[in-house]
């Protein structure tokens, strides 16, 4: 794995490996000294062309916990506002010998362009591009779901897939890169994905996605999902009238107190409510739902740091000439002559 650009081309094996490494990173987050020396001397640049709080802070915390140096490059107040192109910015970062670039960009495909262009040698991590993908968000959602299920079953979560899990994603799918990344990743990991939203906020061609689409939230909830993921209504991307009023949207598509009570009456005691944040309280999710014990919003933020640590570790450690996974990572002392073949398989 050289770059992390999308979940659509992420294999189940690589996704599971990343989640398993994140499991060990989460254990580090619970210690007194939350720091590992693995990326000492490496430089991670956060290149954010769009506003973000939690994703940028989460990547920064992840890089720092791995002892990497972090440069935050906020586009406001930088040469980009003077008209610098992505190429020139990238080459500037290359000249500063960045080892990884975490990029968020309003244009879909900007991270892929950066990775394929040859402008830089650094590993590229997509932190959200336009309405395309947000892979680390989907990975942290999968991680949260996996841990939730492991806790219910009293089993270790490492190594397990999401097979048999039913996840309902609700709301503004059209503008949501989180929804797209989750559809690909969750199905890769074996979960069943349901989508629900007003027809105006579902993209053209959704019929070819590996999921079932509902045009009524209560019909979708009747499918008894194990998790309900509410998407943020992205008002800043809306340049047309997609629904008559926010009140109507909230009533038909919001996860309000009535629907929260419905989960209880349906006996869905283990169904969780997820939200990628930032939340529009009272619009797509009610305050009671956001603060209920079912809500995983804060767990998602916490898991975000672990998942991003795993992504940075897997992209930046290891011999750059050979990025294939070794089976025999077990033998300890250093000369390669000691590494035995994996016999336990």
């Amino acid at each position: 794995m050289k770059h992390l650009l999308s979940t659509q081309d992420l294999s189940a094996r690589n996704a599971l490996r990343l989640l398993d490494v994140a499991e060990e990173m989460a254990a580090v987050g619970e210690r007194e000294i939350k720091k590992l020396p693995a990326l000492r001397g490496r430089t991670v640049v956060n290149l954010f062309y769009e506003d973000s709080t939690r994703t940028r802070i989460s990547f920064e915390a992840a890089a720092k916990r791995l002892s990497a140096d972090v440069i935050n490059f906020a586009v406001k107040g930088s040469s980009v506002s003077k008209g610098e192109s992505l190429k020139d910015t990238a080459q500037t970062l290359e000249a500063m010998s960045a080892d990884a670039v975490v990029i968020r960009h309003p244009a879909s495909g900007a991270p892929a362009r950066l990775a394929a262009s040859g402008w830089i040698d650094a590993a590229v991590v997509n932190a959200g591009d336009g309405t395309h993908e947000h892979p680390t968000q989907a990975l942290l959602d999968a991680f949260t779901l996996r841990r939730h299920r492991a806790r219910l079953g009293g089993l270790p979560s490492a190594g397990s897939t999401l097979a048999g899990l039913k996840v309902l994603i609700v709301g503004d799918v059209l503008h949501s890169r989180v929804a797209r990344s989750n559809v690909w990743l969750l199905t890769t990991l074996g979960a069943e994905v349901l989508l629900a939203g007003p027809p105006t906020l579902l993209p053209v061609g959704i019929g070819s996605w590996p999921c079932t689409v509902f045009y009524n939230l209560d019909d979708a909830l009747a499918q008894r999902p194990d998790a309900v993921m509410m998407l943020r209504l992205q008002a800043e991307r809306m340049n047309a009238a997609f629904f008559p009023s926010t009140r109507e949207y909230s009533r038909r598509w919001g996860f309000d107190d009535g629907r929260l009570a419905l989960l209880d009456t349906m006996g869905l005691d283990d169904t969780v409510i997820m939200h990628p944040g930032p939340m529009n309280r009272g619009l797509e999710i009610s305050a009671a739902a956001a603060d209920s014990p079912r809500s995983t919003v804060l767990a998602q933020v916490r898991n975000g740091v672990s998942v991003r640590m795993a992504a940075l570790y897997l992209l930046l450690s290891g011999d750059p000439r050979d990025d294939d996974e070794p089976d025999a990572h077990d033998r300890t002392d250093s000369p390669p002559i000691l590494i035995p073949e994996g016999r336990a398989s």
Partner: protein
Amino acid sequence: MTMPASDSGITKRVVLAAADIDRALTRIAHEILEANKGSRNLVLLGIPRRGFPLAQRLAQKIASVDTSVDPDLITGQLDVTMYRDDLRRHPTRSPLATQLPPSGIDDKVVVLVDDVLYSGRTIRAALDALADLGRPRAVRLAVLVDRGHRELPIRADHVGKNLPTSSRERVRVHLAEIDLIGGSAVNEVVIEDRA
């Protein structure tokens, strides 16, 4: 005994059989108790992968001598992957779990357990990892095999067997908890040489 392996040009020599390993571990367990003047404050941390089953076996033997010891409560696993100095020289390694005993390691006598002591770099990484987890009163090192060729000023306190080797040879430790060879669990230490 020397036997030609299926791969061309590799000779294998069994240097410790199951009974030899068991005797060596029994002696090390007694040495640990003797050096520590009993089992008080003792914690055994195995370095993955094969250090951990060895630590479990040592804890069992200590418990059979001192019945006040619960072997599960003094055994743990210490992963050193993220502290290695050769992360950039090998394909990416996935870290394994670190599990400390419930009592933690602060003010304990920690015995690091590994199968083969070679360059000493793993133990250097383990000492760094320990410092991030707590402050033991003392740290000691027990290994099943010391094969020499040290690259750092590190030595073991308890050694199962000193094996003079050439750096061309490989020392392989097979433990029944982990290794299945031809469908059966095997306990042995083998030296392989590429002729």
